[in-house]
């Protein structure tokens, strides 16, 4: 962040103005932060049209929400990169047999020849994945940058 005093002041004023606007909106609509102490769930989880029942105990609410959030977060498991073992390994940075460099150079070819079965759309997607910028951001620079931000 290479910023001048003038720019920094402008950013602060802008942030203050935005804060004021949000405060006014909040005051207009009133406080609506009601802690979650009740949750409705399906009486039969396998039937989407079944009746809703209300859970009120801490344990039941936590169990159901954690289950729901976990289910919600695993939706991508059936997509190509997580369902094909070869593609999964290809993008795993911890695997010594990953293909990250090849993917970034659009030279991905594995032993299973999975790339031969790609559709035109998939081929275009892989082509686009190749590295766009040759320079990297500097991490030591980040160290200096944080100190600069903090000093401002």
């Amino acid at each position: 962040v290479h910023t001048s005093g003038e720019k920094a002041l402008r950013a602060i004023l802008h942030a203050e103005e935005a804060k004021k606007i949000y405060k006014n909106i909040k005051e207009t609509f009133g406080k609506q932060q009601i802690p979650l102490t009740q949750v409705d769930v399906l009486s039969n989880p396998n039937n989407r049209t079944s009746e809703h029942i209300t859970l009120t105990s801490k344990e039941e609410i936590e169990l159901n929400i954690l289950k729901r959030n976990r289910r919600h977060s695993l939706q991508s498991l059936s997509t190509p990169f997580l369902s094909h073992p070869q593609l999964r390994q290809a993008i795993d940075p911890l695997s010594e047999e990953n293909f990250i460099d090849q993917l970034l150079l659009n030279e991905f070819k594995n032993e299973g020849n999975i790339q031969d079965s790609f559709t035109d759309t998939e081929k275009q997607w892989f082509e686009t994945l190749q590295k766009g910028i040759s320079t990297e951001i500097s991490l030591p620079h980040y160290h200096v940058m944080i100190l600069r931000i903090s000093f401002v």
Partner: protein
Amino acid sequence: MKQESTSSSPSGRQFGHYHSMLECFRQNNFSIPSLIISIAHISLITASPLNLWQTASQVMLEKGKGRFIENLQIIQLCKADLNFVLHVIWGHHLICHAKKNNSLSTSQYALPGETCNNAVLKKMLFCDLSRQSLSPDVLTDFDATAAFNRVIAGLSIITCERVGLPRIAGKFMFLLLRHMKFHLITGFGKSSSSYRNQGVLQGSSSATPIFLLNSEISLTAYNKMGIGASFQHPVNGSIVTDHSVQYVDDTSQFLNNMGAMNHIPPEQEITQLNLIQLASQNAQTWANLMWMSGGNLNLGKCFFYAFTPSISYKSNTIHYDKILSDPGISITNPATGTDVTLQSLNPDDSQRTLGVILSPDGKGKLQ
């Protein structure tokens, strides 16, 4: 340092503690902040996320649709110092580096210096130009399902490295996401049990940049493969073509007769039916590209407008031909293999898009 039982942070430290540390700077005492920055720096350059950083809290909020479990919104809270590191590297340095090197599509609007209003204005411009050119058009709006939760951690490292993230920082992020444990916060307090999940820590400073760089691949590929909308500059005659506009997980695609011209045999007249067929191809391409990067469309929430404006010289007003409801835009859902037809709207039907109620006829009739 005192820990607080009501703190949202897993460590029990409030954000106010960090403000107090910044006060040390003002008093020329750099010892504590420098120590924290050094720890964060070592953690990053050795790809060893601190144990303290590997827990996050999930706060469940009602979205105004009742308290049914599937309608709750998840907000994830991570440690303030971790969020600061994520903001500096992913939220600022990486995105600015990608933007400076023209590595981001012009259809992308969730960028520093841009706002969602710019994305809305681009859509409005498309509708205005279609009225001026009186051309048949199709505007398709897509909604991504569980967008942030579906980002694949391993793939996101590659999409970030593609625009200049050092691999060691990518590995740091991968390990952080892989080992992150989520606790739940409800009105009863913090849950004792936790779980691990996919996703990119929605709510953190790095979530939007990572999602953006991930979807950038699909967006750029779409702009190469899809058929867009073209308009001719009235003065210099140059042709300007645009395909889409995206703001985080909200994507719209444009199509008009001039854009479709090269994709329909010259002897054939371009009709609204042809355009809808091409828009179907576009929509299927987009669904497949999103599927490649781990995402999927919420097809129940996607919709399209197909409209042909014409002038009524009698009343001096623009009116729209009745749209064809059949055949509509149909997409095969890559997850289930089933065909889904998108909702077709009339040009005067307003839809809320990026916080603005917008309709192609420019009148914005409220629903």
